[in-house]
């Protein structure tokens, strides 16, 4: 017997959590002598009020979809992949190498090739912790988080010593060839004669992200592999009984997870920066954890949660730009949202369940 209807579980609970987070954020803003109302208005107008705002919001959303899906797939195998940050960084290296060293005449060819490069590098970076977990029992949380640091250091070295063009003082790769530049959504809108989101970074990768949501849904709920991943995630002894190899599933799930995280590089490295820079991921790997948590480990939920965090990111940026609310406070607001929708989920859920139970009892009696 379900404790409460599905819609309450999926929509009402996160909504209430979100309102609670907003209320506390408002109190914090009040406490430093600013107007919460003005802050909210600035955030909404800056991120959703214009096609310019939307252009940035959707760009961030695209990043978070990939890292959110990455966490989600691993989570279904009961693996907590905290290494999205490092895997996405490595994905960026993959993209840079492919685009700098392969002759790619058109973005339509460059995109799939770069996707392979990004996914392969991300997956390879996830493979080592996966193998250590599967064969040696090293805990994946520890190893993936350590691999984030290793990835950052490795990238630092590669950018400074290998990819940096001769004479450049900037620790970044050369610009990618013109032919590989991805069309932005504003370019695409222009092709249809529409003026939309001029000078915003959102690009065709957004559609790739939506495609990834669909494919991940198919993978997890419609394929044998997804069935095995979910079964293993729920019960390892059960998986053994059913002839599902824990080693195989651990490694495959992490390869897919790392690949998805790596794919984020299509958006930020290939689509936006058009070269590889230091710290290109900007924490999106960690946001992915919150996105997957809030999205209930379902691709649709991940999409919606990514949208919310895209809004928070862009709105937060606007807040720093137009008000005297310090940048740190925006991180506080984002942290509150993560805290309430992720960690304190049960705080809202349990009273709600009780409420629904008592309502049903009264209705049934």
């Amino acid at each position, binding site marked *: *017997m379900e404790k409460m209807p599905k819609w309450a579980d999926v929509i009402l609970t996160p909504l209430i959590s979100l309102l609670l987070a907003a209320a506390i954020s408002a109190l914090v803003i009040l406490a430093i002598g600013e107007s919460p109302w003005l802050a909210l208005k600035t955030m909404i107008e800056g991120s959703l009020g214009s096609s310019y705002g939307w252009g940035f919001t959707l760009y961030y959303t695209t990043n978070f979809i990939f890292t959110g899906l990455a966490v989600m797939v691993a989570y279904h195998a009961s693996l907590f992949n905290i290494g999205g940050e490092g895997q996405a960084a490595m994905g960026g290296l993959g993209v840079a190498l492919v685009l700098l060293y392969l002759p790619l005449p058109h973005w339509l060819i460059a995109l799939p090739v770069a996707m392979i490069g990004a996914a392969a590098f991300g997956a390879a970076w996830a493979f080592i912790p996966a193998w250590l977990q599967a064969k040696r029992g090293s805990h994946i949380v520890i190893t993936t988080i350590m691999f984030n640091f290793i990835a950052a250091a490795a990238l630092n070295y590669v950018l400074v010593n290998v990819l940096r063009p001769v004479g450049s003082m900037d620790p970044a790769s050369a610009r990618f060839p013109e032919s590989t530049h991805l069309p932005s959504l504003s370019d695409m809108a222009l092709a249809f004669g529409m003026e939309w989101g001029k000078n915003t970074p959102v690009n065709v990768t957004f559609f790739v992200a939506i495609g990834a949501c669909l494919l991940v849904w198919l993978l997890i709920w*419609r*394929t*044998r592999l997804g069935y*095995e991943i979910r*079964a293993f995630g729920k*019960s390892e002894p059960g998986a*053994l009984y059913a*002839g599902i190899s824990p080693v195989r599933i651990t490694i495959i799930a992490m390869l897919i997870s790392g690949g998805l995280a790596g794919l984020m590089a299509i958006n930020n490295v290939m689509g936006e920066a058009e070269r590889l820079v230091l710290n290109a991921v900007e924490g999106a790997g960690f946001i992915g954890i919150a996105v997957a948590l809030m999205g209930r480990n379902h691709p649709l939920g991940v999409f919606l949660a990514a949208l919310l965090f895209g809004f928070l990111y862009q709105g937060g940026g606007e807040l720093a730009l137009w008000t005297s609310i310090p940048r740190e406070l925006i991180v506080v607001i984002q942290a509150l949202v993560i805290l309430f929708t992720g960690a304190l989920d049960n705080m809202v859920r349990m009273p709600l369940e009780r409420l629904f139970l008592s309502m049903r009892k009264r209705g049934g009696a």
Partner: protein
Amino acid sequence: MSAQAQQSGGRSGTAAPAAIELRGISKAFGPVQANKNINLRVEKGTIHGIIGENGAGKSTLMSILYGFYKPDSGEILVNGLPLTITDSQTAIKAGIGMVFQHFKLVQNFTVLENIILGVEDGRLLRPSLAKARGVLKQLAEEYQLNVDPDETIEELSVGHQQRVEILKALYRQADILILDEPTGVLTPAEADHLFRILEGLRAEGKTIILITHKLREIMEITDNVSVMRRGEMVASVKTAETSPEELAELMVGRKVLLNVEKTPAQPGAAILEVRDLKLVDDEGVERLRGISFDIRAGEILGIAGVSGNGQTQLLELLGGYPEKGSKVSGSVRMNGEELDLTGTRSDAAIRRARGIGHVPEDRQVEGLIMDFTAWENVAFGYHHAPEFNKGWLMDNAAIREDAEAKIKRFDVRPPNANLAARNFSGGNQQKIVVAREIERNPDLLLIGQPTRGVDIGAIEFIHKRIVELRDAGKAVLLVSVELDEILSLSDRIAVMFDGRIMGERLPGETTTGELGLLMAGITDTENTPDSAGIPPDLKHVEDLPGGQP
């Protein structure tokens, strides 16, 4: 309170107030009515059995009595006085003690430390320990409850741990002792000893409530018995005036066949040939010490034994998933072909392809994914089967259809394939597993504890299916700790002890007594292929989880 009870040695029928009287107790969990208007009278100085299927509400009722749940309505009288039991402390003060099915003991504390836990007098432990030692000695003499007070719990056999639980209750001056399924983990000899203890307690005027699903125990030891069905108390009778058949019928609500009806086996060619099978686990413990047996087509081989004597390892090994890191030697031939035992080229899926079906001992951890729906579980282990797949994707419609048909044929209730496995009762969960494995028509069925935690109605059903599979010319390896089940289902019985087969018997030519001795590791003198050459190594008896020193 305790003084009151001690003065009365009266049996049922006296005019003295009942030790416990429940009047109109009701308790609902959400829409589920766990207890409906329960009336119960437990006379002082009697052993009162409470029997019912799983989910009949026995445990809820006892939890109310012990203060874990608050009843929605109704009243409780202890020794004739109304009492509101808000928590277990109130219950203990009123002289009620509880021995849970799963013991609540601190494993690395000594017996004495466990006994005073929570009732220490003052800040220093020494005086409490000294006092407890005295009381314990007295109790041990009075009731044959001998336990070494300075032994740590983990060193004790299960039977002795249970005695510690009883001592804990007595130390807290319990006059009314509730025992929840106390014999589930005991050997027959240990169970007998427990019953002698209970009789001794009754003779001292204590009142005992025995919750069980074993009809034999009810008939053997109780004075009165109450039967619960679907949250209601359907009958309270004197044990002497009833019969197991009547009780079973009251429990289930219809006539039940207690004994399995089957024709003599017609064994054919050997399906499974096991030779000198040995398994050393990753801690270096020898779990299987040279097992050999055959199972022929159309035959059920029952393996009896106290749990923890290698049966689990045997089933897992044959099922294709020995514990990680274990070393295996010996040979297993299935339909004449050697099975790969090294684990490198075989897993459970390959065993299934070889025609080995497996109903595992623990359906909740292995046999089912509890969060999966019933229909998803019907494909579990067979999810590569061509009929469940369409190209790259799984054919969920086909799986669902198959599941619905199985649910119908096996009378799984509620008949809802979309319900998560965890929302079915134990018996219905087991039916899902059994349906999945049996309907694949395996050449060999491995089945472990087929009816553990399963209600009587479903037991009858599952037993029938097993016998049907045998009659269809298939081989069955049955592992069970329930001797009754082994005796009524098996065509041959092998007893396992400490990783060895102590002997083989035919069900018609043996007794529970003889099997009990074998289960305790007392090697038979008759010459059987498996026990020959093994000296009667009585030292092992004491090392054993269920052994009697």
